[in-house]
């Protein structure tokens, strides 16, 4: 079974009516994944014996019996969790991430773990120990990253919903590349307990679905305070589905000129068309400036890499994961295990981060980057004082070809220019499909002030209703 024409509501109804059983849904899902994944390589681990929870309550739990995919950097008790790294190729967790506990409590069926760039470092899902994932719209193209596996799984109809993580755009960019919706909630909205850390002050777990409302359903389940993560807000979590189906009349929409200037030609037209549709529906469009946009890429790569260099030190070959053979002493265990266990991109970032934190560089790099981050936050505060949302393109170009940019890290890093700011400022941000450019999907990015996911859902749902992109089928999945 595939989910190209399904959503959580439609599945919930079928389950409730007894039209399908949760057991067969799980079984069919896994069969379809096995069949279609030869083309995509979206999965690292498929849980072939996945079974729905017992005593399913389809009325109380919208997600009851619904198969869900989990990015493989989220810890799942008893299901191998690798972060797409040789370093953790054999790592079997003994606890559940908070989001997993919450999904289990909501009776969702976890069917497996999706591919990603190693330790979520990358924008193409090419940097995986388990090989590259392919874009369902064109199998020669990348699905984006780092949540490329989750994005491809949803876009190809393998699952109706997937969890991703977003440190600098890792949910939104692949969502845009694959023509699906993806939301990175406010930093502090969803617990990071059990998310394999990359950049701790930037990382956030989010949801990827074909339909906007489905993400609201899943976010309803995974959001909220957690005793394990003191950076999660105690704020009450609203019912995000209540923002679906509202009109946008009077909505104050800021369009940063730096974002629009980053795109051109057909891409710019597609984005402009979405903005015009908001205007036609009575939204107030304001052109604004995010003056520090030009600094966000270096700023982000210093902060994220610095934190990563420290977060990834625990992979030392001592307690779990990969350990090199034929080592002579302790230093040898460390050096060989890490040299052999990590891929090139991860090592590049560890080196970058270690350098930025070193005694001679700290003031010039890390401290300076922290100051720039404050300025970027100020930019956002100013705009949100007078606007409800910021919209613009999610990406500068549609998906590129597999192998095209993998050898040019700077070009790859620059792809993130439009998504990074939301992580630095901690604001919620989503990408909703805007249309096709040269046959490949592109996304409209929507940001709002911290803890205002409501306006993000409201705007995205309006765009979805207006352009009906969900009616399109990925070309690569046609037999």
């Amino acid at each position: 079974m595939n989910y190209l024409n399904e959503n959580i509501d439609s599945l919930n109804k079928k389950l409730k009516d007894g039209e399908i059983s949760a057991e067969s849904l799980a079984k069919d899902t896994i069969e379809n994944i096995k069949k279609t994944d030869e083309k995509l390589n979206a999965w690292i681990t498929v849980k072939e014996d996945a079974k729905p929870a017992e005593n399913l309550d389809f009325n109380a739990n919208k997600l009851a019996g619904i198969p869900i995919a989990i990015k493989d950097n989220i810890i799942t008790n008893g299901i191998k969790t690798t972060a797409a790294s040789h370093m953790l190729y054999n790592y079997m967790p003994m606890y559940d991430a908070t989001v997993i506990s919450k999904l289990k409590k909501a009776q969702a069926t976890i069917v497996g773990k999706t591919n990603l760039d190693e330790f979520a470092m990358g924008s193409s899902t090419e940097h995986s120990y388990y090989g590259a994932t392919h874009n369902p719209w064109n199998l020669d193209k990348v699905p984006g990253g780092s949540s490329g596996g989750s994005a491809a799984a949803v876009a190809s109809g393998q699952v109706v919903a997937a969890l991703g993580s977003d440190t600098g755009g890792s949910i939104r960019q692949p969502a845009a590349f694959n023509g699906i919706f993806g939301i990175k909630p406010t930093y502090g909205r969803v617990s990071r307990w059990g998310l394999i850390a990359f950049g701790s002050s930037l990382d956030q777990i989010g949801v990827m679905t074909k339909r906007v409302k489905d993400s609201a359903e899943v976010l309803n389940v995974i959001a909220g305070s957690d005793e394990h993560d003191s950076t999660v807000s105690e704020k009450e979590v609203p019912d995000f589905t209540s923002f679906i189906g509202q009109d946008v009349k009077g909505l104050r929409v800021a369009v940063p000129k730096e974002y629009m200037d980053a795109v051109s030609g057909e891409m710019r037209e597609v984005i402009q068309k979405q903005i015009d549709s908001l205007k036609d529906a009575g939204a107030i469009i304001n052109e604004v400036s995010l003056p520090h946009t030009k600094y966000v890429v270096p700023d982000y790569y210093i902060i994220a890499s610095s934190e990563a260099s420290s977060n990834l030190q625990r992979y030392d070959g001592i307690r779990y994961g990969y350990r090199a053979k034929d080592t002579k002493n302790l230093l040898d265990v460390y050096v060989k295990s890490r040299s052999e266990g990590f891929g090139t991109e991860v090592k590049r970032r560890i080196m970058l981060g270690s350098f930025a934190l070193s005694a001679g560089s700290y003031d010039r790099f890390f401290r300076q980057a922290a100051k720039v981050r404050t300025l970027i936050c100020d930019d956002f505060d100013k705009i949100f004082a007078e606007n409800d949302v910021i919209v613009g393109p999610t990406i500068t170009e549609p998906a590129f070809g597999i192998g095209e940019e993998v050898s040019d890290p700077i070009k790859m890093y620059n792809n993130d220019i439009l998504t990074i700011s939301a992580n630095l400022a901690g604001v919620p941000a989503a990408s909703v499909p805007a249309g096709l450019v040269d046959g490949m999907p592109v996304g409209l990015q929507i940001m709002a002030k911290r803890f205002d996911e409501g306006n993000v859902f409201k705007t995205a749902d309006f765009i979805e209703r207006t352009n009906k992109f969900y009616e399109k089928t990925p070309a690569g999945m046609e037999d």
Partner: protein
Amino acid sequence: MNFKSTIGLEVHFELKTKSKIFSPSPVTYGAEVNTATNVIDWAMPGVLPKLNKDVYRLGIMVALATHSHILPTTHFDRKNYYYPDNPKAYQITQFFQPLARDGYIEVEVRGKKKRIGIHEMHIEEDAGKNTHGANGYSYVDLNRQGVPLLEVVSEPDMEDPEEAYAYLTKLRQIVQFTGASDVKMEEGSMRVDTNISIRPAGQKELGTKVEMKNLNSFDHVRRSLAYEEQRQQQVLLSGGKVQLSTRRFDEATGKTVLERVKEGDADYRYFPEPDIAPYHIKQSWIDEIKETLPESPFERRNRYINDYGIKAYDADVILQTKESSDYYDAAVQAGADPTLAANWLNTQINGYLNENQIGIKDIKLTPEHLAEMIKMIKDGTISTKIAKKVFKESMENGTDPKKYVEDKGMVQLSDLSVLEPMVTKVVDDNPQSVEDFKNGKDRAIGFLVGQIMKQTRGKANPKVVNELLNKELQSR
């Protein structure tokens, strides 16, 4: 040539919390290896630290007790280094902003009072323990990983080993009385590192410092510093240079041994810990803690001397440990005469503790029983001689002194209707003693008292018997 020493001390205290600083694992001593651990202590992928706020409360107590300035906002930082007993490969500590700064304590050395500055104190987590087996394998025990520590860094204000010794003694006493730490060096709940440099008298800039780590008693601190003073002097006098280095104290030879030479500072790549939000310490909370802060040893000493009227020496003996001071307070609270209680504690009880090599917490004599016994001495119910018997019984078997005295018929005989006829009879029976008494021979009365004691099997109240005899003899 004369030299001047400059000494600074870094003292780690284990803060006395039930669970670890960033994980719910229990804080234990002597548990089976790796049983007091969980996924956080093992630094499994995806785990996050969760701060146990009790460490702030305990840290603030020590800060208040040492006149330190508590910083309004405090946060944690990461100190990055690899070692198997450090599973995250970073230690969570406070580098950029400690809990408190600029405190001091007052010590007395050779009769002179001196203020020793406290540069700062910060909270951090302890590492696990590596052990090296004879089979060539090394083993890691993470029970200690994540035990909360308070590191108290002194100013380099001490100028000789005696001052360092006095500082440590005082600091331990202060911390112990707050209840924030067990301060047991033998169990590692107090650990001392020292820094010492010397310079020719008159020279302004400090000499090169030598660090000594993991000294396991105050005496070792004093001896190793004294040895280093001499060693460094000889190095300088022979035209050499003191190396920036870490040395250890060798107990057997009384010498210090070079461990490693430092080539510049290690680069720990400190940066703010992103997993724990900065914490604002409200003044109202500090005030609240101040309210509940146990009486300091200094305050207790004043109370003992000024309110109870006991000797300064006795007060200091009682205040050597919090346990003995608490015991004393409990006994006085239960109605014991403060002077008698101090005497019994400092002589009989301490003697018993030394003899049996135990602590005051291990004895069966409760402070309440001690108070009861002292009351009986004071009101003449028992004699001091009998009291010693009672003390032994209560100490060994935890017997209630009052009950024991009653059961054994040890109550002192003070009843005049019984004693008066006895006195009359004993004087009648011994006419010679009346003569002796009249001739001014004091011995006579002693003899008569002895007769009465014999008849009462030691129970007669000697004071009353003496008075009665005097009266009787004078009337003859």
